[in-house]
């Protein structure tokens, strides 16, 4: 494989799969924050 092809493949993986990982992490984090903020039982 040429260097340019390797670079583009790595960039594609980093952006798309990295974006997916960030999206999942954000969703899980936000879900957890919402749950803590809105579940009254947590204040008991």
């Amino acid at each position, binding site marked *: 494989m040429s260097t340019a*092809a390797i670079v583009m493949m790595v*960039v594609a993986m980093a952006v*798309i*799969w990295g974006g997916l990982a960030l*999206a999942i992490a954000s969703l899980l984090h936000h*879900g957890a924050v*919402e749950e803590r903020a809105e579940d009254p039982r947590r204040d008991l």
Partner: protein
Amino acid sequence: MSTPAGQAAQPDQERRRGGFSSRRVFILAAIGSAVGLGNIWRFPYVAYENGGGAFLLPYLVALLTAGIPFLLLDYAIGHRHRGSAPLSFARLRRGTEGLGWWQVGICFVIAVYYAAVIAWALRYTFFSLDEAWGADPEGFFFGEFLQAGDVRVTADVVPGVLWPLALVWLAVLVIMALGVQRGIGVTSLVVIPVLVLAFAALVVQALLLPGAGAGLDALFAPEWSALTSASVWAAAFGQIFFSLSVGFGIMITYASYVGRREDMVGSGLVVGFSNSGFELLAGIGVFAALGFMAQANGVPVDEVASGGIGLAFIAFPAIISEAPAGALLGVLFFGALVIAGITSLISVIEVVISAVRDKLDTGRLTATLAVGVPAAVLSLVLFSTTSGIYVLDVVDHFVNQYGILVVALVSMLVVAWALRALPVLGAHLNVHGRPRVGTGWRLLTSVVAPAGLAVVLVLALRDDLAAPYEDYPAWLLLVLGWALVVALPLIGFLLARLPWRAGTHLDGPPPGSDPAEPLHAPDPAPHTRHQDDGGPR
């Protein structure tokens, strides 16, 4: 107009619709819908043909500026109005119900022919075990398997296609009859991880083949000059639209089955990136295998590179015949096609079933049979014959180019500019969604995404007017192509004139659907309740 009694009955009606039991199930179902045959056999070749590694740039731009914003628009419409596509549009504004039925019509047509391709893949999963195609995969596919003759519509049945097609429809009808959670949800929960694992195994096997590097080089080597071509950008927008299942009712329907407090923006980002992530995986696997084939035949990769049916049923069998452990490669590849196809097919047919249920207030089983049996019969009659491949090719081309694209464009323009509903839909997404959507999302949804779609549409129209598609006879293109895409909106707006069942709430979102309501309020969303989900009434 709804009556007070109708409003009181609304939460009960909504519970009867069924729903996904959790956000995870919804996300897997939405990924299952988005990840289809196009991810595996369309994306790799489109990327290769349009600049290789450089295609990544317009592809990502299209994903972030059009695909995901449009996905969120669909989610907002379905999640806020809690109905099938026709009901959601009717609740948005009565006069736009026809748009929903237009989308339903497109889904019905897609379901009818999509099942045939899954049936082919099912047969080829077993053909892989003994390489039934022999030394001539192309001759085997068109000759022995499909028995395709001259281009004409015939009633000569091909038993080798008939019975796997019947099996596919039987499986789909059982899944659909089981309901939203027990059918679609559980199927997605089980088969999506299997699909990812199977394809990952295929990629590993393909990467270990000699010549894989040359294939990846062909796919990823950037041709930067391609970025100045309008057709390359149109190809990127087209790929994103076709791949994400946006604009023709699927995501509206699925979003209506999600609990009202779920984060639809975060879910949309996960679905959008998962779809692209799978496409990237497919590109690596497919081109690694094509690199092997090129090396084995002593030719450059561009002589073996192909997409669509040619890639799946001609190029891949040739690869399987030459690769070590080819049977395993074949089972993984065609098995992945079957799984990806089934999860997409059930989402397409659910658009129709959901619409029938909402309009006629029928039970799950009744609606499944009312929709699924005619669809299956049509599918068997049209696509298990010796002319099935031609009919499929023409219908697929026209429904994709002028069905999905046009209804998506019209829907987006109507919602954004005629109804000016984006602010209220954005506010709905922001109640529990993160990141928040604002002016940028409204701009992308009202200007950038429609502009991208319009360019794709104009370029496709230019090509089809310049020369008959694939040199098919004019009568075939007229009847199964142009006439079909013109008939669908007409039928859609006629169906919109039929009355809704008594008590259906049609003025805006139904009572109890506000996601800002406190947690202790009864959640009408069928989050964990599925009394009617699958039960005949």
